[in-house]
Structure formats: C-alpha cells, structure tokens
C-alpha cells in the first residue's frame, strides 16, 4: 500500500510541474507583448522599465520559468491590474482565498448530488434493462446532458426565480441579512468554510451509516437504523450551527446556491448514471454473480453486495475525470448567476485582460483538480484490494 501511495505522490508531483509549466507557457510565452501580461498598462514608462528589470521580464524563457517557480514557492501570485471587477494592486492570492471556498461549496454540492442520483438511478435502470424503466430515465438524461448550459441556466432562472418566485435572481447574498454581521467584521469565508466542512462531514457520515447498515437483511430494521443515522446527523449539524449564530447566513447561501446547483446537476446527472448502468451491466455478467445466485442469496443481496460493489470501481475512475468537467461547468454557471467564485473571476479577468488574476485562477484550478485526483486514487485503493497489493 505504501508503495502505491508513494508512486502516486511522485506522479502527482510530476504532474504539478507540468501544470505549472503549462500555465506559465500559456501566459508568458504566447505571442504578444509579454509585458502587458504582467505589468499594469497604466504604469508610467520609467517605473515600467524598473519593473521589467525587477521582474526579470527581459531575461530568456527558462530563467523566467525559474523566477516564476520561485515566486510560486513564496506564495506570490502577483497583483491584480486595476480593471472593472478587481481592485488594482490587490494580491492575487488574496482574491483566490476569498473566492475559492465559494466555488468549492458549489462544487461539493454538485458532485455529491450528481453521484448520488447517478449511482441510485444507474443501479435501478441496469436492473431493469430493456424495459421502459430503463428507457425513460436514459432518454431524459441524454436530452438534459446535451442541453446548452447557459440556456438551461436562463430557463431555470426564469422559471424558478421569476415565475415561481422560489429563489433569488442570481447573486449570492441577501444584503439585508448579511449587513449586521459584516459590520461586525464578518468575512464571507467565515461562513463558507464551515459550510464546506459541514457538507463534507455530513456526506461522510451518511456514507458510513449506509455501509454499516448494508448487511442488515430485514428491511424494517435497516430503514429504521438509517433514519436514525440521518436524524442524528441533521440534529448535530443544526445544533452546531445554532451555536455559532450564523445559521441564517448559511441558509441564505443555500437559498442562493440552489439554482446554480440545480442547473449543473440536471445537466450532469446523466453521465454518472450511464456509467453506473454500463458498469452494472458488465458486472452482472461476471461469473461470480452466477455463483452468488447459486449460493441462494436474495436478488437484493446479489445486486447490492456483488454487482453494485464491483460496479463501483469504474465509477471511481469516472469520478476523477468528472472533476474537471464540473470545474468547467462552474465557470459558466457562476457567471450566469453572478456567483462570485473562481469561475466568475476567470471569465471577468480574461474579458478585462487582467492577466495576473487569470493566471492565478487557472493555476489554482489545475492544482485543485490534481489534488482531487490524488484523493480519489487513494480512495480507490481502499475499495479495490487488488490495487493495494499490486
């Protein structure tokens, strides 16, 4: 196992280098006057020359790469240009720290829901191969999957925000609720970061409960145990949030998050669903499934313990790949719904030619996805013993 871990870490390190180099190449080596990428166009000529020399912009490419790496190691991502969305001179790192949790919470919610729905639906429709129970969800999923994201977002906005008045029209906060807190020095991260932790914790708890109760054969007991687990979780979360006094803020965030998340989930659930279905179908044909039936196990036990369990393995792989797709989706939805996260920052930065910000965001995205991949690989080793022993 340690061998596997080590190997993966080495691979990740190598990829990290590749990512950084790629970002560097894109932004600093592309045709065009490189100085405009780094230095604010408004700087007066003399200061500009001094800046060029200080940042080493007149040196050859490989030296610049080294300088860049040095900067990164110190955590320096440069400073933003003064453009419409970003205050000039503000450290890019600061911008990222402020926006990253907002994207992460979106991301976590979308991914969890996508895979939950995909897993459960996929399991069902594979078992109902060839019937309407398979065809209908598949058809709906395919159509939704191929819907143009901005269009879907606009339609949902119109429908739920304007027609049904259920959700706010874009944005991320109802200022009226937040003002008193902000006056007392609250920052957005004070709410978002705990939210991320809560969400992760609750998901893990739910997974644990379900795993632990999986083997209970009697339906009533199983359901009762699970309900208990869910109740305990919700109660615990509610209590904790109550104590921090930030609950209304958290609810407000969720209220604003609903539409962007809904958009991405509607478009995205089909993919894991179909992967799960295919995986189940492959799994069902395995010899050990026949053995399981020959042992006299119930249909439910065969499906859940044997077919679904091994069908999970390809899902983990597809999960790793979907991370990139969700990030892409976030870029679009954040802009559409005016959700000021990383994706929103990227589009604005590119549009306004605010290169330091753009560079910083792309880099962070790459690193974040890389980390997610590493985590998934390690989890994979937990569920597939063959990988551990290789």
């Amino acid at each position, binding site marked *: 196992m340690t061998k596997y871990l080590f190997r993966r870490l080495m691979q990740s390190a190598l990829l990290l280098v590749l990512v950084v180099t790629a970002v560097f190449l894109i932004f600093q080596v592309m045709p065009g006057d490189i100085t405009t*990428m780094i230095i604010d166009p408004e700087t007066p000529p003399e200061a500009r020359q001094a800046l060029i020399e200080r940042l080493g912009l007149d040196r050859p490419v490989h030296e610049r790469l080294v300088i860049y790496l040095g900067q990164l190691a110190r955590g320096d991502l440069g400073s933003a240009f003064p453009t419409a969305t970003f205050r000039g001179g503000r450290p890019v790192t600061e911008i990222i720290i402020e926006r990253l949790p907002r994207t992460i919470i979106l991301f976590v919610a979308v991914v969890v829901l996508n895979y939950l729905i995909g897993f459960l639906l996929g399991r069902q429709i594979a078992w109902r191969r060839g019937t309407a129970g398979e065809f209908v969800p598949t058809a709906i999923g*395919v159509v939704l999957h191929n819907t*143009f994201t901005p269009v879907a977002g606009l339609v949902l906005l119109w429908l739920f925000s304007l027609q049904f008045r259920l959700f706010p029209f874009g944005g991320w906060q109802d200022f009226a609720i937040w003002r008193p807190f902000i006056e007392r020095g609250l920052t957005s991260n004070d709410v978002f970061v705990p939210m991320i932790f809560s969400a992760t914790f609750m998901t893990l708890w739910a997974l644990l409960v379900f795993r632990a109760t999986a083997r209970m054969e009697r339906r009533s007991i199983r359901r009762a145990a699970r309900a208990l687990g869910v109740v305990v979780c919700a109660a615990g979360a509610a209590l904790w949030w109550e104590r921090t006094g930030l609950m209304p803020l958290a609810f407000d965030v969720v209220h604003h998050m609903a539409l962007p998340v809904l958009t991405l989930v509607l478009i995205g659930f089909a993919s894991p669903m179909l992967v799960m279905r295919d995986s189940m179908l492959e799994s069902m044909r395995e010899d050990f499934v026949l053995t399981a039936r020959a042992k006299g196990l119930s249909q439910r036990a065969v499906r859940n313990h044997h077919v679904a369990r091994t069908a999970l393995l390809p899902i983990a792989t597809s999960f790793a790949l979907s991370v990139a797709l969700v990030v892409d989706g976030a870029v679009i939805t954040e802009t559409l719904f005016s959700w000021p996260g990383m994706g929103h920052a990227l589009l604005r930065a590119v549009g306004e030619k605010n290169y330091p910000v753009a560079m910083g965001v*792309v880099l962070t995205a790459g690193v974040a996805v890389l980390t997610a991949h590493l985590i998934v690989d390690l989890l994979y080793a937990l569920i597939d013993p063959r990988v551990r022993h290789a």
Partner: protein
Amino acid sequence: MPDAIVAVGTAPSLGVWDRARLRWGENVRIFVAGRIGVAGVALLVLIALFALVHPLLLATVWDPQIYDPMGGFTRDTALPAAPSWTHPLGLSRFGRDVLSQLMYSVRVAFGLGVFAAAISVSVGTLVGCLAAFYRDTLVDTLFMRLANFFMIFPTFTLLVALSGVAAIDLTRLAIIIGLMGGLGGITVVLKARALGVTVKPFIDAARIAGGSDLHLIVRHVIPNVLPLSFLYMMFTVTSAIFAEASLSFFGLLPNVRMSLGLMINEAYTAGYLGGPLLARYWYLWVPPGLAITLLCAAFYMIGRGFDEVVNPRLRERS
C-alpha cells in the same frame, strides 16, 4: 488423403458486397438492434439536410440582401421582430433572419465538430497504438504523462485562458480541441484496447510470418482498435460544439462571425434574455439552443449505438 474433410455446402465464391456484408453485417445488426444508434443516425440526417438546404434557398427563394446570415438585414419593423411568414423565426436585433442564421450556424457547428473529431481520433489512435506497442518505453511513459495532464486539466478553463492570450478562429479552435482531446483521455482508453490486441496470439503469428513492427501496427493493431476510436469520435464532436458555443456565448471568440453560441450571445449581451424578456424573445435563444441540443444528442446517440457494437457485454441478451 486427409481423414477429415469438412464440407460446408457448395457456396459459390463471394463477391465484394457479400464479403462486406459478412464482415460488417454482424456489427450493423447489433447497431440497428440497439435502436438508439438508428435514432441518432436519423436525427443527424435530418439536421444535415436542414443545413444543406440553406445554400439552395439563398440561391433561389431568398434574397441575399435580406437573408444573408452575416450581412443581410431588414429595417422595416421594430427589432428584434417576432416570427412571421416571411421570416419564420423572426429577426435578430440587427435585422437578420434568424432561420437563415440558424441554418448557417448548424453547418458551421457540423464542420467544426467533425474536423475536431477527425483530428482527435487520428491522433488518439496513433498515439494509443504506439504507446501500447512500445509499452514501458520512453514513448509510452511520455504519452501517458501527457494524457494524464490533459485528462486532469479542465479543458474549457484552458480554452478560456487561451482565448484571452491569443485570437482564436474556428479552424484553430478545432485543431486545439482536436489535439487536447486526442492526446487526453482517449489515448488512455485506446491504449488499453490496443494493449489487449497486442497480447493476442495473432500478433505473434504475424510476427512469425515475417511482419515488421510497422506491418503489425498498421495491418493488425489499428484495424482492431478503430471501432473504439469511432466511438470516441462521436463524443469529441459534442464537446467541440459545446466548447465553441460556450466560448462564443461569453464573447471570447472575436474572430468568429456566426455560430450557434454567437446567436445567443448577441441576444444576451443586448439584454433580451434577462428576466421576463426571456419568454417574449424566445425565438432568439430557443432555435440555437435547441439546435445545439439536437445536434449533440444525435452524435451522442450514435456514439451509444457504437458502444454496444464495441462492448459486447452491454448488449441485450438476444
């Protein structure tokens, strides 16, 4: 005399069509039985006809002055104008006929998608086969690391970044998407399939028959990998179309003159899609939106149909 003569009836020598039918017949039958592939093909044919009709119309019934998708205009009415008999999908804010724009854009999307897919399939197949054939060498490691990189990196994010530093037109976009796709996840999958082929005894047998590496790769490995390549080609088309549409929607492709994404962008940036106006100006966004969905869904369905041919385990038990 051989003691086991096997007679298979007196079948005459088979002609080209018969041989083709035998070779591909099984695959076609499976494709058709899956129904989804056929539906995709039908849809695609309809859309293709829709796009192809456009130049005909411009040459005959439609006056280019008015109907040209990029230059024509009508100023007689309030713009944008709702659908009418002369303009079945209405007029855009610049007075251009929406239907004409739609037909033209569909053609653009087709071309872009297929071009990008062709590149990604050729690159992916070649790289995958080479990596499998020369596995565990530098070639293999290099390509796999590269593939890892492209698989991990969010492609749209990368495209957004690229659009900010360089002016990208449609051809360049197709090439970039084709390369990113071809060197990315596709390579890993195709390499795995090619690996499966390289360990089969018939490869050894061909080597023993005197075949060189080149002969083996071209004559034996690639033909057995190709069906899977076509499958992925379908998915590349959809991702190319989506990518372009999204980039155009945000106005990041200044060099593109007309496309599906641009149609929606035009309406969005002018505010015609905001809030309650969405329903009123439906003809500005529904046609292109629907076209994207239908086009991508068609390719997607064909891809799923292919999937059943390539992955025998997915087939319905017949």
